[in-house]
């Protein structure tokens, strides 16, 4: 058994060396006692920082109002800044009547834990903004802002590199004030011979971290064009993380760290790498979408060219030969019999009419002037009927809505989706019938739904390659308006594609304006 003295001594030692900080102050905030933990957190200050004192005071008031509750629950951590040191401290006041007039509190340094927490949240938010479809620059700006928000990073730039690996384009940024002419100034620095650390990150595909980079840059006359921009906000070390897509470096995420006691740690860098991965995903996705869009445009041109070859070119060739025959006949014989003339002219009239009809159908398909005049419903109807006439497929069209007022850009996207879907049916489905219907559905009939159903072979997995890109471009168009494209199909059981978009009054803002 321990004696009372021994017990006191033991308690004293345990309290002094406890991993948690313990501080005792008087009513004015003067520090009377602190254990080792509190000394680590507070340093050798005589007075408790006001922010901590405020927590203790607040607790004393609430404890007085509601007796019984020890008030030990920790509130939001208190941020302490001491020179370059920035700490987040959880403060749990000790509410015990016998302490009065002294006050005491347990202090825990939660800086690291909070950083980790914020970073995880930042990664999660970044990945959800990458997953949501939007324009690339806006997505990258959002991710850059997340990096800055997560902490310890004063500013972020995301740059892409051209194929030579030397010319830089600014894709997104957060933290620096005015960056509109950043790239111009950077190019000027390059001309002056400034060494761009981001280029070595790009060239090696490895992270570059340089402690105390800012003083170097600001002292270097070759960086003069950027001195003004780089001066604010305050930063110190630089970390360049390559953006890697499929093993190739497409750009660099430049992080400018707030001045710290320590240079960036491996955990700091791991966080930046995770964020750079999100950006790289966004870049990769944008590239894929641009290929898909390019292919869609190209396919459309091919479709039109093939249709021209198949119809108008043949008609016009025939008209030309017949007209020449007529001319030669007149030259040779001096006249043409009325019977012969009638045969030729009838053929010419009928060929010209057919050529004109074909041209009209093609023009409708290209719709240079938009659908404004005919409206979406009528245009889809015409397009479905033209498809039936061209392919011999049995087509049906019905619409619950006679006229839907849609913004022209949405109308265009929807029309292209329908075209692409019909094209896929013709090309891949081996269908004999196709049915297109337009309806308003959902809450308050606020959704425009277009269904395209065929009786073809359905889809096998993996889906045909051209199809993947086609689907991607259809989805992209629908998602731009907060809508979706859903494909339901089983092998041998036909296909059903449903396009859903919110109707205009409730429609999402047009692309590019969103966050």
């Amino acid at each position, binding site marked *: 058994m321990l004696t009372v003295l021994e017990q006191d001594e033991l308690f004293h030692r345990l309290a002094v060396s406890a991993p948690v900080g313990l501080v005792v102050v008087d009513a004015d905030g003067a520090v009377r006692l602190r254990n080792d933990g509190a000394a680590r957190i507070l340093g050798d200050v005589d007075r408790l920082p006001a922010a901590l004192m405020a927590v203790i005071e607040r607790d004393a008031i609430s404890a007085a109002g509601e007796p019984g509750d020890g008030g030990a629950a920790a509130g939001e951590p208190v941020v302490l800044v001491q020179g370059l040191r920035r700490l987040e401290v959880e403060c749990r006041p000790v509410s015990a009547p016998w302490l009065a007039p002294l006050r005491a509190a347990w202090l825990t340094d939660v800086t690291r834990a909070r950083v980790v927490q914020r970073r995880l949240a930042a990664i999660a938010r970044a990945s959800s903004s990458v997953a949501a479809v939007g324009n690339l620059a806006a997505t990258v700006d959002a991710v850059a802002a997340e990096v800055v928000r997560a902490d310890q990073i004063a500013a972020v730039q995301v740059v892409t590199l051209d194929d030579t690996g030397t010319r830089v384009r600014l894709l997104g940024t957060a933290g620096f004030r005015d960056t509109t002419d950043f790239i111009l100034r950077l190019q000027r620095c390059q001309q002056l011979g400034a060494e761009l650390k981001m280029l070595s990150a790009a060239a090696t595909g490895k992270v570059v971290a340089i402690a105390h980079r800012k003083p170097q840059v600001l002292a270097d006359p070759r960086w003069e064009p950027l001195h003004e921009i780089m001066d604010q906000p305050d930063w110190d070390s630089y970390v360049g993380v390559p953006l890697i897509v499929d093993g190739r470096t497409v750009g660099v995420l430049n992080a400018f760290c707030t001045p710290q006691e320590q240079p960036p740690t491996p955990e700091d860098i791991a966080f930046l790498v995770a964020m750079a991965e999100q950006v790289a995903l966004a870049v990769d996705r944008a590239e894929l979408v641009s290929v898909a869009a390019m292919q869609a445009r190209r396919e459309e041109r091919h479709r039109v060219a093939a249709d021209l070859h198949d119809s108008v070119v043949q008609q016009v060739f025939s008209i030309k030969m017949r007209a020449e025959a007529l001319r030669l006949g007149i030259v040779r014989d001096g006249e043409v019999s009325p019977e012969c003339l009638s045969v030729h002219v009838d053929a010419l009239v009928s060929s010209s009419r057919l050529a004109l009809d074909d041209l009209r159908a093609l023009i409708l398909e290209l719709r240079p002037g938009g659908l404004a005049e005919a409206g979406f419903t009528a245009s889809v109807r015409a397009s479905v009927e033209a498809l039936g006439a061209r392919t011999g497929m049995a087509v049906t069209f019905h619409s619950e809505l006679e006229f839907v007022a849609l913004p022209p850009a949405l109308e265009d996207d929807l029309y292209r989706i329908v075209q692409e879907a019909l094209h896929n049916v013709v090309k891949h489905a081996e269908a004999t019938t196709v049915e297109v219907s337009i309806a308003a559905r959902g809450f308050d009939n606020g959704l425009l739904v277009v269904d395209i159903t065929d009786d073809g072979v359905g889809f096998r997995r993996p889906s045909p*390659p051209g199809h993947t890109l086609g689907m991607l471009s259809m989805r992209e168009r629908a998602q731009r308006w907060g809508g979706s494209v859903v494909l339901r199909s089983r092998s041998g059981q036909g296909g059903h594609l449903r396009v859903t978009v919110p109707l205009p009054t409730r429609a999402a803002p047009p692309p590019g304006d969103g966050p």
Partner: protein
Amino acid sequence: MTDNPIGVFIVDDHAVVRSGLAAYIAVIDDLAFAGEAADGEEAVRRLAELAARDSLPDVVLMDLVMPNTNGIEATAQIVERFPTCRVVILTSFGEVERVNAALRNGAVGYLLKDAEAAEVAAAIRAAVRGEVHLDSEVARRLTQDLRTGPAGPALLTPRERQIFVLLGEGRSNREIANILVISERTARTHVSSVLSKLNLTSRTQAALMAVREGLVPGSR
């Protein structure tokens, strides 16, 4: 009317083209309409019937893109079975590959449907004289192709060509590796050799080129 007009047989899947051509041939003194067919298969059958009656035409005007037997195959069959018949291609497509294929199969003329009417008669007469008549634009493309030799995708090995097509479908290295059952590293090596052979710097460029070359199924 010439004593012995040149018999011309017309093969085209568009009736309107056949009737226009027939009308034209009918008014040219030294040409005579000798029959027609809507596709390559029918053409060979009809010619066989004419051969049996010893009235084979001198020249066959042949479209290329047709159902059943296309013009390129039909040309080979006709040249082999009826060596006295000269085949002149009359089509709306002038790609070098098609021209080469048609000439290899024995065609002695290649006209585009945007040719002047008189050129059709000229090509028919040239064929009978044993000459080769090419549309001037087609001839230009052909010589250019001869001068520059194989370029672009023609330089790729079969494996690289597969990779090139997959790039055109927008596949990632991992997907390419999975599809071809190779390691991702090997896929990456193939991708970079495709890029360097094609003188490209990014896979996006490669994808666009593959699509442009019509190598991606579903892109044409």
